[in-house]
């Protein structure tokens, strides 16, 4: 089998791997790099549980091939906290009980972090539409939306 050699950066660290061209970035992150924070909920871009950033752009890692990661910078949930300091979103998600089972949480954190970097003062409606591609089946989204809105307000105050 012919595998392709790929060099990329994940959460700031340079990594190399060999992969079959059919493998998705999600397959590579999970099965080759053992970064299992990104989850496969559907494999077809409908659930957002595999959300990562590629060169700062929010995407579904199940809809990118591993070989496309060559020369890119990938950001995953594992890179959100800085050392032992949680990102304000992570802290608020715990405080607000914005997760029940937690399977959608990594994707939602990656997605909302990308939102707040782009728009520090989103309306409730903007948060809801931004997250429309991140399915959560446990919470009814209520506490997630509240946690995001409150984090945004706090980050605005802090900056």
């Amino acid at each position, binding site marked *: 089998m012919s595998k392709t050699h790929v060099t990329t950066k994940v959460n700031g660290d340079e990594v190399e791997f060999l992969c079959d061209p059919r493998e*998705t970035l999600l397959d590579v992150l999970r099965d080759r790099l053992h970064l299992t924070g990104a989850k496969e909920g559907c494999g077809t871009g*409908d659930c957002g549980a595999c959300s990562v950033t590629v060169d700062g*752009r929010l995407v579904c890692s*199940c809809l*990118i091939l591993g*070989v*496309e990661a060559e020369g890119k910078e990938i950001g995953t949930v594992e890179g959100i906290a800085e050392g032992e300091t949680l990102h304000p979103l992570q802290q608020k998600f715990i405080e607000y009980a914005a997760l029940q089972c937690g399977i959608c949480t990594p994707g939602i954190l990656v997605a909302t972090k990308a939102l707040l970097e782009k728009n520090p003062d989103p309306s409730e409606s903007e948060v809801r*539409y931004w997250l*429309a*591609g991140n399915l959560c089946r446990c919470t009814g989204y209520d506490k997630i939306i509240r946690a995001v809105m409150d984090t945004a307000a706090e980050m605005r105050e802090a900056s």
Partner: protein
Amino acid sequence: MKYYKPATFEEAIALVAGAEGVTRILAGGTDVLVQMRSDIITPDTLIDIKAIPGTHEITRTEDGGWRLGIAVTGAEMSEHPELGRDWPGVVEAMDLIGSTQVQGRATPVGNLCNGSPAADSVPAMIAAGAVVTVTGPEGSREIAVDEIPVGPGKTSLAKGEIITALTLPPRGAQGGDAYLRFIPRTEMDIAVVGCAVNLRLNGDVITEARMVLGAVAPTAVVVHAAADALVGRTLDEDALSALSDLAEASCNPIDDKRGTIKFRTHTAGVLARRAAKIAYSRAKGAKA
């Protein structure tokens, strides 16, 4: 499956022309990867065009139109400071596709080449009069967007040909476009019906009109009679009724899991009215 990342269009075209079996072009991949994952198609050759210079650029053409590289994503279109001012309907149509995540990858040219009757950006591009540059071993030609899809999943591109650019015409004065689709949820669904309207006015009077429907026939439907119904008049209730009736009469949909013939036909009429009103107000100067 073999994966190639050519550095030039010439290289890409040579690969496409020489490939055996199933060949797919990879831009955003939001359709191709889903088809691979679902075992619908596993290409023998996959050609990633994103390393080709210019494929990510949105530039003004000399005549005041817009030229989009074939890897330009929905998100890049939405974020562009000027494109959406000229062609809000096209940008919105693209923006309706999938999630924020999908927007980060999906491209209008991919949406077009996927050949889905329900592709959101296609009716809007056709209504806008968009043109694609098709390049093959014999050289390049410009083709109107509505000539690309020929049936579900099928395009008019010949073997060895790929689309190398997308061009939107100059917006010009007193023009406005709009695209609306109907879905059961607020996001994430495939269009049950889509409707794009592009108008130009002289004062309050319509001078040019194009309406295109999606998801109501094997390919997007250009409602040619819309111009006859609208040109020379204002968008009054009679005009809206006529447009709505025309939309319904132009439908040739199927019953499927996403909608019935009856519902699609009815809703096409509803969307025609609503989209026309938005396009009209934009042509009169309303901000998108």
